[in-house]
């Protein structure tokens, strides 16, 4: 290939991966960098809103008997502050950074389900706007960020504020789950050839683990919120003790989500720290396997600690001790990470720029937050500290020290990559010192205030308790902290236009994103790199890489028929498996999110016609979305196998032995050789990205089912008799018939692909089963407001019926799709995967509803 050919090829690649211009481009873009950047700046806007709320709170508390805010405004502001920072700033900015940088770090060109990614952004944006719309209607949520019933029931919170909260938060959580599905599939299946599990950069590891945790944590709060909203709208007494409910059910469901949530924020932040430390002390983070193992250990352990948020609800001492000791355990993997960074700094050659200062600030603050974490995990001490400003101080040490400081380190570190410009170091360091000093002045005195008796969420305190000075210090500190945050952001804003040009790799960093241009072009890499080391950019000379550009030895260097091609690789070894064609710009994500939002607004204002219409339109749009892809992608292709002819040639150049430099580490050369062998014999195999998306999404769905089943058994254990009255007993005849039909429908789908006819037949049977199920439920005479038993059974039945109805829709759509493009395996795969998952979950729910009351 001549240079001119190469230039032409790169120009065409750039065109192929371009978004459309103007407003249309804004609404239709799917590129991971655009979407990721939108997540980041939207989250920053919410950070500023949440910050203003915090300052108002501190102004009110600056003096005893403060008069800045009334109790109503105060309660609204602390609720919105917590909600905004946790749901609208923390998670989205970390997801945004992951969406932007993980594809670059692992050497691919986009997220595997780009439209879903765009959809996730719109859902987040609309959910955030909906939450803040409450300021315009005056019904601002005021139940606290953990919204405990019965305070949040209609009896004690009759306004629409809690509905705004429940629906807005649920929407944002769904966006989080969507992003998580995306990132899991991305990192498991779309890494550059040769990037084995042990060569995944730590930030990407942390993004993978964060996403995995979100799949299991977020469904619990979605389930809890749906139950509470059903209670508020239809009088179902899930949390009402007078009708068999239990307010503690909410606390369990919320904290099964809420505790992992803290680590969902913390783990990717530690990933950022690892990335920044390595780049800025110019040495890979030591003890890489231990650090990864620590991430995994924290992720798993965090799901077993939720009760330490409930030490004062009156549980047995033994339970408290168990959860306390389990909470202690987290100190070990956290300590390993902290000392791995310290050791890396020790052995490295630090460059004392702004990012590294933020890391040092993070270490100091976060370690103190961890120590107070051990304190509050100690159950007897927590009986004093719980729900006081001690805890407020503790979690701000963890969340500001442990998350905001690393995120700011990351923003400064990656800013040149996103914009091609360097922020000012002197302003960055000034901002750091303002934030560091301001933070400690604001939050350290709160430890003492808490032990002195100052409970959290109090809008005022009387004079004479000796709390004035510490509170005033805290308020002054919070304003200094805010000044630092503003200065930091102003520095970035200024550099965006005026900053010094950075070039592709201003820090001399180690991971692949620094091999791309700054800002990266639309297609990220001119050809996809092949990876032979954990620090590919540092090891390129020593390990046999081309000295000049990493890309020149890569693959997929030439576009083919204007298709957006990426490489799918195997889970462990990252061996090439298939070339995947990704969809380009499209309206479907935007309009679908808009339709869903209108449905949500319908629920909010009790306009049920609007709610129903929005839902139906959204489903129609989803069908349009599912079919758009196939039409465009397969009709353009004359070659159904999907292998572009140029890509063998691209790999072929790599076989030139002249490129190989002698060295002890032959891994990259081997990886490339192995990649080349694979390419030569490459016929698409393995499952499509959509199949993986369905499977990972099913994990989240299964977790929602698990949360509802948990709720069922929790209520059952608290009940004297189950069902509570004989009138709730149901005949088994029709449900058994429904079960039989669905089981046969499942069995008919057992063969791998299943013949078209068998799948149509299975559809008919399942539709019959669904009809019988609906008949049985309607015939049972259950009322949702009768008692907790009937209410939870109705919810389980509706969940099961929805799973089955969606399975029917998916199957119908995919069968039609399969007829339109018979050579494409994807529709069949997606259909079979969802069908099986949905039917299994349906059967589980059937067993809970019909078997559980008879045997336990």
């Amino acid at each position, binding site marked *: 290939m001549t240079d001119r050919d190469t230039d032409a090829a790169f120009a065409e690649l750039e065109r192929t991966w371009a978004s459309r211009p103007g407003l249309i481009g804004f609404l239709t873009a799917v590129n991971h960098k655009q979407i990721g950047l939108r997540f980041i700046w939207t989250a920053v806007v919410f950070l500023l809103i949440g910050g203003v709320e915090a300052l108002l709170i501190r102004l009110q508390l600056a003096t005893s008997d403060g008069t800045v805010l009334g109790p109503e405004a105060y*309660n609204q502001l602390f609720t919105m502050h917590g909600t905004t920072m946790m749901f609208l700033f923390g998670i989205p900015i970390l997801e945004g950074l992951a969406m932007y940088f993980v594809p670059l770090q692992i050497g691919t060109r986009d997220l595997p389900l780009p439209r879903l990614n765009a959809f996730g952004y719109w859902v987040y944006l609309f959910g955030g706007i909906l939450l803040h719309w409450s300021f315009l209607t005056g019904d601002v949520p005021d139940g606290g960020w953990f919204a405990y019933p019965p305070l949040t029931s209609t009896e004690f919170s009759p306004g629409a504020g809690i509905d705004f909260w429940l629906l807005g938060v649920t929407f944002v959580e769904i966006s989080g789950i969507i992003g998580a599905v995306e990132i899991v599939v991305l990192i498991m299946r779309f890494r550059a050839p040769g990037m084995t599990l042990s060569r995944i950069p730590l930030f990407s590891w942390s993004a993978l683990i964060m996403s995995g945790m979100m799949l299991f944590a977020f469904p619990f709060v979605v389930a809890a919120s749906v139950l509470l909203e059903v209670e508020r709208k239809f009088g179902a007494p899930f949390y009402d003790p007078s009708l068999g409910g239990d307010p503690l059910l909410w606390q369990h469901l919320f904290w099964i989500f809420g505790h992992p949530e803290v680590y969902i924020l913390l783990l990717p932040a530690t990933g950022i720290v690892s990335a920044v430390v390595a780049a800025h002390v110019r040495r890979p983070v030591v*003890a890489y396997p231990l650090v990864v193992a620590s991430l995994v250990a924290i992720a798993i352990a965090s799901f077993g600690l939720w009760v330490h948020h409930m030490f004062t*609800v009156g549980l047995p001492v033994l339970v408290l001790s168990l959860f306390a000791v389990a909470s202690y355990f987290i100190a070990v993997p956290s300590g390993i990470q902290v000392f791995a960074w*310290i050791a890396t*700094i020790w052995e490295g050659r630090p460059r004392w720029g702004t990012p590294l200062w933020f890391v040092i600030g993070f270490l100091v603050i976060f370690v103190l937050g961890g120590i107070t974490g051990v304190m509050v995990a100690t159950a007897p001490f927590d009986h004093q500290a719980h729900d006081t400003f001690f805890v407020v101080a503790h979690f701000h040490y963890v969340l500001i020290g442990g998350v905001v400081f690393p995120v700011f380190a990351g923003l400064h570190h990656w800013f040149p990559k996103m914009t091609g410009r360097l922020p000012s170091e002197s302003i960055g360091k000034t901002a750091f010192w303002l934030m560091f000093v301001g933070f400690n002045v604001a939050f350290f005195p709160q430890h003492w205030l808490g*032990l002195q008796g100052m409970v959290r969420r109090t809008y005022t305190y009387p004079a004479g308790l000796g709390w004035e000075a510490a509170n005033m210090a805290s308020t002054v500190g919070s304003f200094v902290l805010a000044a630092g945050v503003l200065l930091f952001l102003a520095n970035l804003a200024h550099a965006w236009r005026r900053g010094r040009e950075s070039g592709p790799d201003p820090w001399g960093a180690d991971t692949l994103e620094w091999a791309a241009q700054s800002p990266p072009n639309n297609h990220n890499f001119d050809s996809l790199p092949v990876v032979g080391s954990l620090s590919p950019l540092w090891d390129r000379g020593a390990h046999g890489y081309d000295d000049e550009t990493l890309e020149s030895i890569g693959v997929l260097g030439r576009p083919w028929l204007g298709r957006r091609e990426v490489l799918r690789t195997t889970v462990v070894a990252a061996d090439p498996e298939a070339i995947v064609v990704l969809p380009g710009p499209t309206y479907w994500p935007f309009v679908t999110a808009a339709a869903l939002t209108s449905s949500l607004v319908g629920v909010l204002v009790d306009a049920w016609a609007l709610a129903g219409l929005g839902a139906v339109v959204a489903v129609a749009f989803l069908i349009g979305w599912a079919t758009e892809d196939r039409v465009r992608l397969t009709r353009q292709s004359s070659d159904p196998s999907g292998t572009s002819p140029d890509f063998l040639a691209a790999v072929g150049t790599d076989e030139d032995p002249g490129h190989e430099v002698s060295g002890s580490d032959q891994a990259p050369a081997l990886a490339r050789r192995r990649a080349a062998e694979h390419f030569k014999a490459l016929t698409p195999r393995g499952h499509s990205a959509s199949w993986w998306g369905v499977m990972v999404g099913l994990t989240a769905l299964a977790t929602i089912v698990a949360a509802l089943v948990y709720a069922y058994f929790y209520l059952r254990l608290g009940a004297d008799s189950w069902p509570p009255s004989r009138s709730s007993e149901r005949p088994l005849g029709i449900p058994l018939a429904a079960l039989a039909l669905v089981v046969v429908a499942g069995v008919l789908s057992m063969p791998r692909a299943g013949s078209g006819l068998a799948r149509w037949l299975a559809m008919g049977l399942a539709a019959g089963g669904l009809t019988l199920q609906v008949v049985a439920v309607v015939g049972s005479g259950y009322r949702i407001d009768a008692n907790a038993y009937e209410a939870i059974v109705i919810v389980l039945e509706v969940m099961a019926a929805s799973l089955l109805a969606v399975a029917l829709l998916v199957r119908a759509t995919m069968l039609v799709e399969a007829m339109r493009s018979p050579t494409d395996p994807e529709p069949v795969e997606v259909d079979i995967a969802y069908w099986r998952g949905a039917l299994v979950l349906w059967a589980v729910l059937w067993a809970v509803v019909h078997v559980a009351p008879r045997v336990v």
Partner: protein
Amino acid sequence: MTSRHVRRVPRWVIAPPVLALAGCGDQEPGALLPRGSVAQEIGGLTLLLVVLGAAVFVLVLVALGMAVRSSPLGSGEAVATARSRRLVLGGGVVLPVMVLVPLTVAMLVSGNRLTHRQGDVGLTIEVVGHQFWWEVRYPDLGVVTANEIHLPVDTPVRLLLTSADVIHSVWVPQLAGKVDMIPGKTNELRFDADTPGVFRGFCAEFCGLQHGRMHFLVIAQTADDFEAWITEQAEPAAPPADETAARGMEIFSEHGCAACHAVRGTDAVGVAGPDLTHLASRRTLGAGTVANRRGNLAGWVVDPQGIKPGNLMPPTPLDAAELDLLLRYLEGLR
């Protein structure tokens, strides 16, 4: 303050440096000045946690400082790797285990002592949380009051806690940790006070608009004083002392006060608000919001929403003369 307390919980050790900054007096209601065996037990554990925590923090800072100051030159990769491994395993595994194992033992021992200590009960008191006040009942002694818990010193007390509406949480930092009041559930809190005194208590679980003004007082008394108080409180309300107070009593019933309030020994048997049988003997109004003085009482009757917006008591429209008569009556409810 007796010397025993100084020995058990040296304040200067426990309190962080900001204590000085806040100009502490003996009035502060904090967990750092325990006045009962439960709070002292937790205070001892707190001391241990603070000392261990501070030691760990200093160790990490020293390691970090050395890392920042270290020179990478002069040691080969093998030395660096071995040193890193020592640091990571030493700091990440050995250090936490060395701290957490004894801490676990201390916690279990402490928890065990707290449970063990709670064997016998000298006095049972029922406390019901309301938005935004506390109903206090002595079931064995026939006493009902509000926002004040009287108890004899050196007597193990058991509080039976529940709620009439949303979740609240009882907390008296100087006497014990907090326990939630959950509707549909009865929780227990056991503790004692070892010094006569007045200790401020708080609602610790966010319970709505006036969560911030839902305080109460625990009044620990000598056995004799407590006995006297109980005797007085068990009596029905004193009949109006004079003509004006009798007229005040009529105003009380004419204006519907009795719909929510009970005055034992009269026709007033409402249960939505605090029992007023011995209102005049209490120290505060509105659950610790203002001192129980004539001016405040007048303000509370006429405009309770001005003093504590969002509480459930409606304003009572009275002219000055009527108000004066009503106050005479209420002030007589000793």
